[in-house]
């Protein structure tokens, strides 16, 4: 039964938003606004560091792809059978290059659909800053094709 894994949480992990990662992500989305690419431009715009795009947390989660593989192993799911069904990010406050965050990931729900032909796996990662304040949330829904 996969449902027994609902609520499973991995140990908290630390990460720092690195300059190279944020800039490569912005370039990957053809971003040309220098506040996402250049420290001096960001500071000139009144920001405390290089800004990051709203979907950058996906690169933060990919940095911990080991947690995804650990989950698939726990659930006995073939990685070739999964698709990204939906994705949601919630931003409680802006993030900048250089910020230190603590992430906690858990399995929020597992549900069969279409008479078991599909299984939806929902995970949540919550990120907090060094003051313990919520910064952002990553809500990911994967779908497993069981047939």
């Amino acid at each position, binding site marked *: 039964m996969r449902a027994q894994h609902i609520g499973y949480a991995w140990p908290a992990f630390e990460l720092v938003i690195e300059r190279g990662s944020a800039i490569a992500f912005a370039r990957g989305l053809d971003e040309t606004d220098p506040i996402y690419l250049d420290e001096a431009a960001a500071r000139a715009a009144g920001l405390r560091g290089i800004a990051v795009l709203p979907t950058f947390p996906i690169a933060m989660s*990919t940095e911990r792809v080991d947690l995804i593989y650990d989950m698939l192993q726990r659930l006995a799911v073939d990685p070739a059978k999964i698709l990204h069904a939906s*994705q*949601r990010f919630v931003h409680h406050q*802006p993030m900048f290059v250089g910020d230190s965050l603590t992430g906690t990931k858990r399995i929020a729900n597992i549900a069969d659909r279409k008479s078991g032909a599909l299984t939806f796996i929902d995970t949540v990662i919550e990120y907090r800053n060094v003051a313990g304040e919520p910064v952002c949330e990553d809500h990911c829904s994967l779908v497993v094709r069981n047939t």
Partner: protein
Amino acid sequence: MNTLDLTIGSALPPLSTGPVTRHRVAMYAHGSGDLNPIHVDPDYARDQAGLPDVIVHGMYSMGMLSRLLTQWAGPGSVRAIETRFAAMLPVKASLECSGVIEAVQETEDGSLVTVKLTATQADGSAVAAGQAQVFVAAAR
């Protein structure tokens, strides 16, 4: 400096990517760290996944939808964004991103705007859809 049109039903300035070439897919794979071979290896896409060619990351489409919002309302304006992935985007296809204002909630220091998001291919076929909450600061 709120000069944005917040009329319900009005459209945000659209964003068109033009053809998403293999190089741009590789740039996104590098930037996101998602090097799944279905996005970067045509042999794998054909022989293992049964597709005619590699496909663009779903998160590329969501990223472009988010840029539609930040180009409109500025950095740090996106409070929440969600996307459902409707269909694969083949490499070299173009992505058309659009947003329509669905609701506006006034807050103490500005407006929280709900935007309906749509990403399609050039022929109008759905790629991704969703919505966002965008904060627009009050005029001062």
